[in-house]
């Protein structure tokens, strides 16, 4: 056996036995170290799939600065704020499951796409937003009501981009639905929670690696055009897909989805110093955890799992830079954090609705 080879000097974390088996779940270390030195009061804007909701609340619970660019009106009762999806993401985008939908949001924020061009779905006499179909418990009263609400979200989304230090995006799905003629992506398959499915109009897409990478790269270019200093932190949701329209078994489809998203995220992070990948997905879904952090439905992540991920996140962050945003804002955001911590955590995961179409 030759002693001189590239593996001889690698650290214990480079080997499965020492890095994973011997360390054990609670001994895992060095899973992630941030690429960046961030200001002590770094602001984080969070978007993406259901799991990103956990991230925003966990950041606040740890006295981090989570940017709330679209807060609820003053003195809104917590149950109403929650019902209207305030305080879930940094703007009221609702869940953004696909890269295609993120790109749509970013184009609107960059004034490259007219928000009023987005489809409205009839709901009786009222209207739903096709990119945020369940953003409010009641459909919008009129087209003007809907358009103003969406424009307000776009304004806040842009504000969150221009005011944040780190734009955190959690990739959730490769599968999505589009308008076949216009190419507009939807947040959900029409006809599941809102809208009416029309097989002549609505087209299933299972976005592949090149399409996802292209969409994310374009979205990030627009984001940097709005805020050249912003860093982008990618994560992949460890929450399995609820249902697949791909024709594959859902377990197989889930592996394709997560593998593709993970590969795109990792490659983007390797290719650009302004992008990083945080391995929350691995912490929850891989063998060391033995599915410990999944609820009995083997899908939802229990709070202990979120806490586990966030502890590693904090350990890997470098917040040693000088504060950049001033004490006044930090105090205000801490107050927001305190109030949020008092709220009951109840995640909103529209994708779950697909399970009701499971005939088995």
């Amino acid at each position, binding site marked *: 056996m030759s002693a001189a080879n590239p593996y001889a000097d690698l650290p214990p974390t480079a080997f499965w036995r020492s890095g994973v088996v011997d360390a054990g779940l609670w001994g895992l270390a060095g899973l992630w170290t941030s690429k960046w030195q961030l200001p002590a009061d770094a602001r984080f804007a969070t978007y993406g799939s259901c799991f990103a909701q956990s991230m925003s609340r966990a950041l606040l619970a740890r006295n981090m600065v989570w940017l709330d660019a*679209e*807060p*609820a*009106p*003053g*003195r*809104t*009762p917590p149950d*109403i704020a929650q*019902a*209207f999806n305030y305080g879930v993401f940094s703007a009221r985008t609702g869940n953004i499951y696909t890269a295609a939908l993120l790109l749509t949001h970013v184009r609107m924020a960059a004034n490259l796409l007219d928000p009023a061009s987005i489809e409205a779905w009839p709901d009786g006499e009222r209207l739903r937003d096709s990119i945020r179909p369940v953003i*409010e*418990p*009641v*459909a*919008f*009263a*009129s087209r*003007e*009501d809907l358009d*103003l*609400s969406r*424009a*307000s979200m776009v*304004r*806040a989304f842009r504000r969150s981009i221009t005011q944040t230090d780190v734009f955190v995006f959690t990739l959730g799905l490769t599968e999505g639905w589009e308008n076949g003629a216009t190419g507009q992506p939807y947040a959900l398959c029409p006809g599941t929670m809102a809208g009416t499915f029309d097989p002549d109009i609505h087209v299933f897409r299972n976005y592949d690696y090149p399409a996802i990478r292209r969409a994310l790269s374009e979205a990030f270019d627009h984001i940097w055009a709005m805020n050249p200093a912003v860093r982008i932190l990618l994560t992949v949701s460890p929450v399995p897909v609820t249902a697949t329209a791909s024709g594959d078994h859902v377990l197989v489809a889930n592996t394709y989805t997560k593998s593709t998203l993970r590969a795109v995220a990792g490659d983007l992070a390797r290719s650009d110093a302004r992008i990083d990948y945080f391995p929350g997905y691995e912490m929850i879904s891989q063998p060391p955890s033995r599915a410990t952090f999944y609820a009995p439905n083997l899908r939802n992540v229990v709070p202990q799992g979120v806490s586990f991920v966030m502890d590693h996140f904090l350990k890997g962050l470098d917040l040693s830079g000088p504060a950049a945003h001033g004490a006044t804002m930090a105090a205000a955001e801490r107050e927001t954090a305190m109030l949020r911590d008092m709220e009951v955590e109840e995640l909103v995961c529209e994708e779950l609705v697909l399970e009701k179409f499971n005939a088995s």
Partner: protein
Amino acid sequence: MLPDVLVIGDSHTTALMAGCQAHGLQAEMLRFSGNFWHSGHVQFHPQHGVWVRRSKAMQQQIMDVRDRLGGRSLVSRDIPILGSMAFNLGRIVPPFGFNRHVTDAGSFAEDTESSYASQALVSAYVDATRGPQFLMVRRMARLASLTLVVPPKLRVRSNYATFSDTIAARLRASGVRLFDPSATLCNEGEALQAQYLAPDGLHGNTDYGSAVIGLMLSEGLIMRRGAD
């Protein structure tokens, strides 16, 4: 002798009372700060009609008026009530706008840092903050001849206007009779004329009260006792 009308409500009762006096109506008045209405301290009471929790002074006010009404409940078939409660816009609109929320397209376009609040959100906010008052007013409307007077229209396009319209719609839908003076005293699409404004700019003045009561008399919503 029983009064022609009992005026109950918040700070807007002052102008209404002045209007009653200007028209020679016999009127009694119970005025509680909008904060007491907003906070739920003012409640329906099965015996007294109206009660104010945790305020001995206001409870005494109520008992004094009851005495002058011959021991009747404040809410009875014998005495028509003019009310200015349930709106209390000064307690609800400013906090709603604390994070720069607006409720109309013009305001949203004008303030590029504002956020838009949907009609459904405004309705939910109103229900959450005014629900107990709506219940109280409905109970009063079942037991007495109650007319609520919509607050003066101080701004044409603003959160005040939106909340006033939303609350008025809620009350009308629940069968409460409303009188909106702005339909007559304001020109189409305009706010209340300056001649009707009190110096604080937030309330109607005596002329306003007189005009409102005059309109209500002419429409038969209130009348002098003994007149048919």
